[in-house]
């Protein structure tokens, strides 16, 4: 019996280990690269014949890893440390990271220290994107990444192979974006957990295989008109997928997610790699343009700010409220949150902050808050004619 496409995508999204095992069986000489979010160009690794997998929070409780990073590190980084401590990160032949936040650098350091046999490569990318020299520095680091993946795989990244990888990832992103656009337009009722699975599976799978399944899943999806729940935008910068039970509680409390800027959502899909430019130049351009397309609190750019993006995004999607999902203690988000809050207040957009934790989320307390937000927004809806 054939397994429906959606089910296969869900399996890949929720069982990285299983997908990687199947890929290894089909590619006995292949190597799997663990990629830390959010800035490493997977196209380079793919062009070298590697399977680049964005390392997920595997949602297991933090046990032995507890001693490796302090409690004031975010749950994702502590989960990564736990994956190292308990041998779960052995899944990858190497771990690569392009600069993101200092806590993630700490998690990569844990992997380097505790798993010396696993190559851990950290590449610094310019964070201040308005600086004149940023482009040059980024280009240099992208070349270093290229050399590193070539050394790891033993294969050259040719312009031709890189162009093919760029095209494959772009096609997959485009197809995903189309689905997200349908959700925002209200023509197809994709639940946030479904969309999360679609993106999370794209983070793990080979892009060609993923796209084929995605198209089937889209065809299988029965169109359903949007209902009357309060339209919300889920905003956040967490480097992992929010807990599915939290997403379910949000939609079960009278809210309907119409858009997001989550890493396991629009943030992942924000930018394609230019297929006209020289491929290495295009890879650098991808990184330097991402922040303008969807601002990241770890980057600095004078002409891009998340609060303006958020306001414009709610105008596009018709979201009536914003729910911020902020992991305890995600410094980049915590530092920017007051700006977001002030701006949305000034624009009269209802909002709710949900501070998430790796373990033990108080779902019932969150349900009360979401329902209170829903009640607030419903009272402000214009009267029916």
């Amino acid at each position, binding site marked *: 019996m054939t397994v429906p496409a959606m089910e296969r995508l869900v399996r890949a999204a929720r069982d990285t280990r299983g997908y990687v095992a199947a890929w290894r069986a089909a590619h006995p000489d292949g190597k799997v690269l663990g990629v830390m979010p959010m800035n490493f160009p997977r196209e380079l690794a793919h062009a070298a014949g590697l399977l680049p997998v964005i390392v997920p929070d595997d949602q297991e409780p933090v046990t032995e890893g507890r001693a490796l990073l302090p409690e004031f590190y975010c749950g994702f980084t502590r989960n990564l440390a736990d994956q190292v401590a308990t041998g779960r990160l052995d899944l990858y032949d190497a771990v690569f990271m392009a600069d993101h936040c200092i806590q993630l650098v700490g998690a990569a350091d844990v992997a380097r220290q505790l798993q010396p046999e696993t190559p851990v490569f950290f590449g610094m990318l310019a964070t201040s994107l308005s600086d004149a020299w940023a482009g040059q520095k980024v280009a240099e680091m992208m070349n270093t990444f290229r050399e590193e993946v070539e050394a790891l795989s033993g294969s050259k990244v040719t312009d031709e192979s890189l162009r093919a990888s760029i095209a494959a990832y772009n096609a997959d992103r485009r197809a995903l974006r189309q689905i997200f656009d349908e959700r925002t337009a209200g023509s197809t009722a994709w639940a946030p957990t479904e969309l999360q699975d679609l993106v999370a599976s794209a983070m793990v799978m080979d892009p060609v295989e993923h796209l084929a399944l995605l198209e089937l899943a889209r065809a299988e999806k029965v169109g359903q008109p949007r209902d009357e729940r309060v339209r919300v935008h889920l905003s956040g910068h967490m480097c992992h997928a929010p807990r599915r039970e939290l997403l379910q509680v949000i939609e079960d409390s009278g809210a309907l997610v119409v858009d997001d800027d989550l890493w396991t959502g629009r943030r992942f899909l924000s930018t394609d790699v230019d297929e006209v430019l020289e491929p290495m130049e295009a890879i650098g351009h991808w990184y330097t343009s991402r922040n303008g397309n969807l601002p990241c609190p770890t980057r600095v750019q004078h002409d891009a700010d998340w609060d303006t993006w958020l306001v414009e995004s709610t105008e596009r999607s018709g979201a009536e409220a914003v729910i911020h999902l902020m992991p305890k203690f995600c410094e980049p988000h915590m530092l920017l949150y007051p700006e977001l809050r002030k701006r949305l207040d000034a624009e009269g957009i209802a909002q709710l902050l949900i501070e998430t934790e790796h373990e033990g989320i108080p779902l019932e307390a969150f349900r*009360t*808050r979401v329902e209170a937000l829903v009640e607030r*927004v*419903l009272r*402000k*809806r214009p009267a029916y004619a």
Partner: protein
Amino acid sequence: MTTRHYLGVDLGSTTAKAVVIDGLGGIAASSTIAMGAVSRRGMQRAIDAALESAGLETAELSGTVSTGYGRKLVPGVQRTFTEITCHARGTSEMVPGVRLVIDVGGQDSKAITVGSDGLVDEFAMNDRCASGTGRFYEVLARALECEIDDLGALAMQGNDDLEISTMCATFAETEIVSLMAQDLPVADIASSVHRAIAARTLALVAQVGKRTPVVLTGGVARNPAAVHFLSRALRVEVGVPEQPQITGAYGAALLALEADQRGRPVQDVAGADHLFPRTSHDEPGHSCAGCDGNLAGPVDLGASIAVRR
């Protein structure tokens, strides 16, 4: 004169409250039953007591709305609303003009700013921490070996100059026992802990912004020391309604009344949602204070879910 009556039920974490109001919003009867954790028996006793005191049978009610953590457990309700909405609604009726409601319940605290229309503006709730809640005061009373009802009077007699290092409900007991082991006056300990709790409540208020007039509701509002220290921390007078524990249930009853005035819902609708006729916000008699913006149209709130990972 009206013969219609409405029931509001607030099933909280430690107490069940029920309020019966008449068709003009006046309180006909109320009851508060302390039953520990969210309890169906406590809820039923509270409902029975309120109905008995009002001289009514369930069948004579024209509408029921429930609120509180156990709101989905209350049988026969037309709608559920969160305690945020209900506390704001009930308090703004009891204390017209209120702008900031601080509700300290059995296991959580909330700060709610209320607009000039009596609607919720902003709200904040304490997170995963029983510090400063009714439960915390119970721990404090036990550690100080005094009755919970005497705790406030005791605290008002002491000096509040002791350093209190933890406000955690779990560790407070050991902290307090250690202070008592130093032979420090019990009244001073009680007073200092109240001061420290008030400072924490300030943090909650900071999330929504300080507005006046301020009203403290919930069982803790009956503790004079809690009111005194909160007032001092906020540097404004803190008002307390006559029956601070029932504001949520009262708000729920008012919402039932207002829904009925708009749509006269049938009495025995199963589940939390039902269809009201759609009217306009500016129709005579419409009060947005009880309106969910759909003019009581269908809202899918709180279907049951089984969450599995």
